């Protein structure tokens, strides 16, 4: 597998595309790109035209990452060859993506499903943000991929204006949609690494009243969720909204932790999160861990799994990006990724998806490379 990477901050879209793709091959198989949302439709068109024979997948990103650094403005693009892929679109993701399940199974069929394993294939998704539809997409993919071991991973597009992330496929911006791409390396290995910079505080509660669809938790252990959380954090209820960013909640599933950021603390004592929560599930209150140590472990884990990393897609949560900006470590973060992963393209996401879970405050690294013998 081979990858090329480019970026441009030139204002003119065509010139920016020309600059960023200057060293790209004529006929790449797959082009990924991220840009700020204003010029995203124009980049979609331009790249779609330029690489008409390739699959061109893009998402708007509040901050994009690449070996060139982290940037709020500009085009970050990568071209790949030497892999097998199949792409498609799920539409109406805010209400009924299941209707398009056939698009997933059809795409899968083009790849000789029997050879697809969790180690050599993934289903990478990019969602238009703002619809709360990610979980319906994950449900749809779970149903469509039932019986396969193919892991799903990806993120929701972002923009500075909350929840207006856009996605595109082959020159078309798609509303209320998810672009999916099955990436398959017949000879190689694909590894997905999830990073949580949060760790349980040691306080867990049962969700006793929740609105699953609207992602609202009304009660934990039979008491108002906001009261329970503020007690757990030893805070006055009025201090909870400010503290919520540093204390997300997480769904505990065996050893795994699926982080869910608190979106709002509501007047009625409920909390709205970025992820769906079912009643009777256990939620843990989380606290920030040592970011640097966690990151070192994450990157080491990627290399533990792969003999060689050719290219990586990174999905980093919006709130993490904001936190890293505030801490002044955003460029160091981009550099660290480059130092460890080499060629990579990074998206700031409004929610990360891994397996059947929608998470937040998480980073996913999808690395394509060679397996260890």
């Amino acid at each position, binding site marked *: 597998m081979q990858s090329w990477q480019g970026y441009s901050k030139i204002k003119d879209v065509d010139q920016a595309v020309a600059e960023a793709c200057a060293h790209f091959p004529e006929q790449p198989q797959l082009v990924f790109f991220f840009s700020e949302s204003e010029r995203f439709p124009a980049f979609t068109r331009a790249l779609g035209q330029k690489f008409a024979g390739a699959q061109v997948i893009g998402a708007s990103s509040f901050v994009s990452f690449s070996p060139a650094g982290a940037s709020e403005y500009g085009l970050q693009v990568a071209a790949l060859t030497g892999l097998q892929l199949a792409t498609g679109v799920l539409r109406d993701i805010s*209400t*009924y*993506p*299941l*209707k398009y399940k056939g698009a997933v199974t059809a795409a899968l069929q083009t790849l000789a499903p029997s050879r697809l394993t969790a180690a050599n294939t993934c289903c990478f998704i990019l969602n238009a943000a703002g619809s709360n539809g990610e*979980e*319906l997409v*994950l*449900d*749809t993919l*779970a*149903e469509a991929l039932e019986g396969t071991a193919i892991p799903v991973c990806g993120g929701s597009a972002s923009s500075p204006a909350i929840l207006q992330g856009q996605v595109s496929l082959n020159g078309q911006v798609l509303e209320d949609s998810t672009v999916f791409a099955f990436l398959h390396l017949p000879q190689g290995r694909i590894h997905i690494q999830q990073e949580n910079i949060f760790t349980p505080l040691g306080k867990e509660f*049962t969700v006793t*009243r*929740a*609105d*699953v*669809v*609207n992602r*609202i938790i*009304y009660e934990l252990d039979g008491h108002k969720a906001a009261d329970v959380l503020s007690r757990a954090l030893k805070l006055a209820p009025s201090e909870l909204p400010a503290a919520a960013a540093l204390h997300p909640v997480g769904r505990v*599933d065996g050893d795994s932790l699926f982080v869910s950021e608190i979106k709002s603390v509501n007047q009625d004592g409920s909390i709205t999160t970025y992820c*769906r929560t*079912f*009643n*009777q*599930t*256990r939620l843990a209150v989380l606290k920030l861990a040592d970011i640097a140590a966690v990151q070192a472990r994450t990157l080491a884990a990627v290399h533990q799994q792969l003999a060689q990393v050719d290219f990586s897609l990174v999905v980093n949560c919006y709130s993490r990006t904001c936190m890293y900006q505030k801490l002044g470590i955003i460029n160091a973060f981009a550099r660290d990724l480059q130092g460890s992963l080499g060629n990579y393209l990074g998206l700031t996401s409004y929610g990360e998806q891994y397996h*059947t879970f929608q998470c937040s405050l998480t980073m996913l690294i999808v690395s394509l490379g060679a397996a260890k013998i």
Partner: protein
Amino acid sequence: MKIKPGFIDTNKNCNGCNKCLTVCPIPGANISVGTGEGHRIEVNSERCVTCGLCIPGCQNQAREAVDQSGSFLAELAAGKKFSLALDPALKLLYAEELPYVLGYLRALGVEKIYDISFGGDLCTWATLTYYQEHPEASKIASFCPIIVDLIEKYYPELLPELLPVQSPFMCLATYVKNYVQDKRPLVYIGPCLSKREELAAGDFNLAYTLTLDKLLLRLQQVDWHAYWSEVDLRSEDLGYLYGIRDGINENLSYFMPPHFSVLLASGLEGRRIANPNVYKSALTCGKVAPLLLNIRSGHSGCIDAPSIPDKEKRWTSVFAAVKGIRSHILTRPDYKENYQIRAELLAARFAKLNPADFKRSFTNRYYQEPRLPADVLEKIFIAMGKTTPASRKINCGGCGYATCGEMARAVAYGYNQIENCIHYATAKTRQITYTDMLTGIPNLYAFKQQTRDLFWDYPEQKYVLVYLDIKNFRMVNDLYGFAAGDQILKAVAEQAAAMTSGKGTCARIMSDHFVLCLPDSKENLPKILHHIRANTKEFKLDFPISFDLGLYRITDTEEPIENMIDMARLAQLTIKGSYDVRWAYYDEAMSEQMRREAWVTKEMRRALAEEQFQVYLQPQYDHRTHKLVGAEALVRWYHPQRGLIGPDEFIPTFEKNNFILEMDAYMRNKVCQLMAAWQAQGLPLVPVSVNLSRLELFEETLPERLSTLAAKLPPQMLRLEVTESAYTDNPAQLVTMIKRLQAKGFVVEMDDFGSGYSSLNTLHEMPVDVVKLDLRFLMGTHHEKSRVILQAIAGMLQQLQLPVIAEGVETLAQADFLTKIGCHVIQGYYYAKPMPAEQFAALLKAQGTVR
């Protein structure tokens, strides 16, 4: 789950019977809401399709359509103008009442009255027009708003299959708005509860949706029979028949070619609409096209709507009306013509109308149901206590759902709560009924049952019932907190359970009290003592936990278990002495003692009121001069039936139940009265000692009260006896109180010195004026040793310059010895027994006083 109120409501009659869940075809349309005492089921309009099935389904009349008739009549009375739209079913169901009610409403100010049957004719014409444009179309009829709502919300695959033609009501509303130019707000009257939803789809001005029954209920006081009105617009064809089961078919086949079929399909009668694919395949079955699939909501059409009460009573009216309409058509000249001519006539009738006005579109309101992760479902099952496959398939329907799985899903989505599973609730109730919630071992109720069963199962076995009390448990709670106390209770419970496992029973019956029933064997008692002692050491307490065990040997297993517990408890109460593990077996004397105490307790108040208690005085003499120098007041009880009762028989009980306070006060009162009388008689007084109980010593006003009581006496004549044990309670406060009493002139005596609690420290710190030695405690069996001890005490008291009174002196030798060692004031049988006041007065008179 936030509940959005809608047109179907749950009123206060709801008792949470769950029946509505059983009849409702829509998961999540009914939401269980906790009420504190139980739950009720509310309607979530976001999911409800207003089918109304739960209205007759609820046997508690808790489900109803929101009644808007009050507001309508009020607005009408206030002069607001409305036009009415009458459901075609009304003419069929209420043929008799309808014209009168309409007359009354018109009198109130209703301007126009339109019968939706006219909309029925329009709808037939619009459908015909559609089929002329699409001769091979196969569609689903969109005339029932419930079915449209259902498809829009739950079966989006069927949306393209819906006939894009307005329903009769919509056609009427369109006609009235566009062609009659009537801009007045419309009021729908009819049995359908879903009309609001239907008109929301277009730009219509629908003010109210009323049912005729609710309206008639409001008009109960009105004589509407005095009015009459016809409608302004109504069907000229078969429009009225849209209200009956096969009405669509009857209307359309009158005008359509014979190969056009209207197929009736079951809709909401079961719990679920049939699989949409069934309808889809029916529609795509080319052989029957053109086709209109009529999915019906009610079995017999709109006349069967759930909002109509006692509708069967109205069937006769319906049959008559339908017959009338049909015969009217049969007698029409066009009946003889073929369908084409009839269709042409209909088209001519509406020639001036634009068919496009009567088309409609549909909205996709579907939301894909969130997929429930398997682990969440598993956790819910476990939380419901359903840990085995069989328990997950009980499917008793008690919760309102057909299966346990459905219920578990409802819990996950927040539609229902675990507590509403009947089996869960029963198990919980059983647990609460039979288990001590803190320790998890049986409670008293369960103990009684299980012990009975034990006796039944092993009739030959001899048993012992053990009553276990953790003696210093309160101290654990006070010093280490309730959590530590709870830990100890749990540990003891665990031990009790382990000891009785398989061979006996146990329970925590209250606080720190446990009962165990075990085979009466030599090994069991030591085993209990050993186990309980060994396993409480781990609690890192600064003192050992001590246990009192009362044991009752069960001789008659038929005896009530409560009695056995009482006996063991009685044995436990008799245990005295210091800590560790102590035990006592029950014997008959204990019962006797208990009965005695019960009698004393029962009689004491009456005795006080009737002055059965009498003051006796035991004189005190100076053994050197043999002169009377004082006395101690003692109580005697003369009971009218039982005669003289000794203080040993009642004082311990009085001390237990605190009656001693009243008794002491009574005695002091009497003594002061006596002394005042003697003083008045000119008798030379000697000091008299009276008791002050421990509890009184902490009453702030005590010195003042005593001063008032002894106001007529020289205060030093009243000596107050304080026991040495009072010092242990609150030494500092006691010392202050003694000083205050002394400041009032009273003499304070330390009573019973040497009775067991003595400490030299007490003597040193309690600022008493006199010490009383009780010879009964101090003279043991080893006379020589006792004499040495007495001598030492006396020497010490002399050095402290504390006067001494020796009581309990019975012989001259004792008196001589005491005098020799410095204790010369003697009280006891040697000189005199306690005597009635009169006798003592005589002594006073005879002897004079020594100061």
